[in-house]
């Protein structure tokens, strides 16, 4: 078959010693830099892009791809081990960190690694066979459809939050409002900025993530008197067969979700991890465990995110339009090397395209192999006593924030969110939905306004367009199910909540055990 032949050619190109070396370097460097809190895949790739200028085109692209995927993996490592997520690892952070608290860090990290591998493999299969077809999918969605997709993503709040749905919704809306701070992209008006220069461009996601998750978690650990003793246990990296059997179905489901959603420009890839998590919560055998440390909660979203990252190349390679900042960088790399992405790119440069596809898979393999030594090193970092570890993590948070704009003032924003995150934690409000709202809010607004503009103010458009109508129906159905479920649970007496034990310097008469419902 044609595709297999092409793949073979691609592998031939990718498996040269030089290209393998570039791939390896890219993966390692990407992972190491992505580990640093605050440096997400995009920042990493921007930092390391100049490294690729002097390398021949195939090698440069392979290295870039390696850096990107390495950074994504490093990102999930810091999410799982330190509860410091970035945009692509918010959901893996939830169950991943719970697994860390249960002393199963190695298992969580391995799950993330192998799920990424599965997600990437499935996506490459999709990429190889369906690129021309899927390229057209991107254009079938108009603003109204995107609006509904974002709303559908919001519905996933109900499953992403650990508290009650109402709390989750509140946090989600707060996140959306926080995202409004800054300059309105459509009119140029400054909203809620108090004329501060730092806020002119809005609040940065990194500040919110580091503050609400990282700093809050550190303070919580300190309040509890650093009971998290240094990690002395055995590092069980390879999971038992039973665990492995649990990972597989979740990872496959996640890959499917991610592959499809990744094609949609702009929002698809971000929503993928939330949708996968929600999917797992509804369909997995172990769904009751999800949220308190189930492997499925890590496997599904990790696979989805990786798959979405791969398939987000499709619009670039089939039509020539980059759909997010990372594919734009790839496009830039193409252009600099004299390759014109677009409808004819695959025909005119088959070795480049198939070589890239093949090396993406090789990068996947590399990451999996890197898992074993790197994770051991990383886990041994946690043997350091917490008293030494936490100032270091705080330092990395500062550097991470600083590196966004090379501006020390941004750290003040992170500090502010550290305070906010601490208050939220003490009030038992989960910040994950806040991140969800923060990320999806601007896309929801942009598409909502545009849909309204095009429909001249009529809400009909949401019902008349087929994709939008389907999503709307799903949203309504999920809401009804959620409401009915909540009422039933309420009648049974108790919406389950989890909250942290009180800090020692607080006066309280109630012993800790009475807090947990």
């Amino acid at each position: 078959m044609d595709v297999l032949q092409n793949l073979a050619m691609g592998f031939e190109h990718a498996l040269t010693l030089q290209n393998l070396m570039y791939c390896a370097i890219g993966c390692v460097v990407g992972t190491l830099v992505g580990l640093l809190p605050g440096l997400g895949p995009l920042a990493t790739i921007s930092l390391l892009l100049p490294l690729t200028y002097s390398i021949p085109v195939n090698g440069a692209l392979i290295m870039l791809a390696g850096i990107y995927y390495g950074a994504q993996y490093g990102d999930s490592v810091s999410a799982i081990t330190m509860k410091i997520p970035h945009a692509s690892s918010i959901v893996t952070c939830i169950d991943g960190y719970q697994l860390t608290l249960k002393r199963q860090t190695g298992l969580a990290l391995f799950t993330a690694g192998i799920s990424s591998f599965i997600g990437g493999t499935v996506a490459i299969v999709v990429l190889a066979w369906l690129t021309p077809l899927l390229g057209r999918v991107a254009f079938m969605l108009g603003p109204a459809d995107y609006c509904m997709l974002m709303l559908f993503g919001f519905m996933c709040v109900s499953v992403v939050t650990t508290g009650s749905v109402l709390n989750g919704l509140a946090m989600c809306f707060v996140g959306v409002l926080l995202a409004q701070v800054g300059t309105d992209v459509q009119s140029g008006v400054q909203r809620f900025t108090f004329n501060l220069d730092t806020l002119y461009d809005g609040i940065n996601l990194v500040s919110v993530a580091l503050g609400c998750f990282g700093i809050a978690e550190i303070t919580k650990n300190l309040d509890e008197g650093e009971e998290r003793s240094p990690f002395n246990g055995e590092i069980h990296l390879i999971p038992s067969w039973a665990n492995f059997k649990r990972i597989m179905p979740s990872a496959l489901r996640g890959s499917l979700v991610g592959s499809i959603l990744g094609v949609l420009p702009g929002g698809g890839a971000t929503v993928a991890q939330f949708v996968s998590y929600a999917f797992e919560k509804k369909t997995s055998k172990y769904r009751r465990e999800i949220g308190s440390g189930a492997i499925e909660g890590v496997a599904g979203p990790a696979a989805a995110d990786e798959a979405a990252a791969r398939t987000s190349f499709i619009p670039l390679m089939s039509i020539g339009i980059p759909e997010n900042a990372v594919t734009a960088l790839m496009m830039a790399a193409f252009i600099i090397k004299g390759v014109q992405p677009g409808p004819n790119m695959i025909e005119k440069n088959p070795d480049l395209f198939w070589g890239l596809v093949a090396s993406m898979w090789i990068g996947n393999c590399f990451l999996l192999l890197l898992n074993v030594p790197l994770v051991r090193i990383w886990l041994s970092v946690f043997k350091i006593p917490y008293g030494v570890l936490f100032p270091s993590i705080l330092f990395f948070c500062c550097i991470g924030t600083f590196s966004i704009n090379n501006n020390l003032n941004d750290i003040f924003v992170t500090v502010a969110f550290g305070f906010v995150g601490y208050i939220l934690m003490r009030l038992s409000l989960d910040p994950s939905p806040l991140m969800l709202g923060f990320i999806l809010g601007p896309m929801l607004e942009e598409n909502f306004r545009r849909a309204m503009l095009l429909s001249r103010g009529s809400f009909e458009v949401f019902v008349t367009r087929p994709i939008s109508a389907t999503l709307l129906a799903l949203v309504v159905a999920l809401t009804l199910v959620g409401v009915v479920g909540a009422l039933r649970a309420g009648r049974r007496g108790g919406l389950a909540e989890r909250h942290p034990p009180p800090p020692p310097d607080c006066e309280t008469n109630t012993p800790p055990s009475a807090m947990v419902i």
Partner: protein
Amino acid sequence: MNRNLVRALLIAGLALSFGAGSFRYSIGDLSDAGPGLFPLMISALLLAVSLMMIARSRYESAVPIEIGMKRISLVLGGLIGFVLVSKAVGVIGGIVALVFVTALAGRSYSWRRNLQVSIALIAVAFALQSLLGLNIGLY
């Protein structure tokens, strides 16, 4: 104070502030949305949710609030100190300030350990600067 009530009130407060703030920008209508329309809509939804939370807190069992300000102040103070000292004398000084202040929030305090950590972090900062080209104003 009932924690559930406090948080519901906090959310309501946020909703009202953002909502009031959004009136300062032109609202427009649905077909020609101004910058204030969307924040207003979301604030309204948030207000509705917060009212439901207030109602729910009435028939839920009251939970007392515990917020210990000591350690969070130290952590945040350390970070602010990092920025201020870095602006004055450079990141090397900032790191020292950060480590010494935030370590106060830890269980035990040791000058020697703080110094060792500071030196290690300064070395890392150097590495980041030279290897990654991250421009950290060290001096």
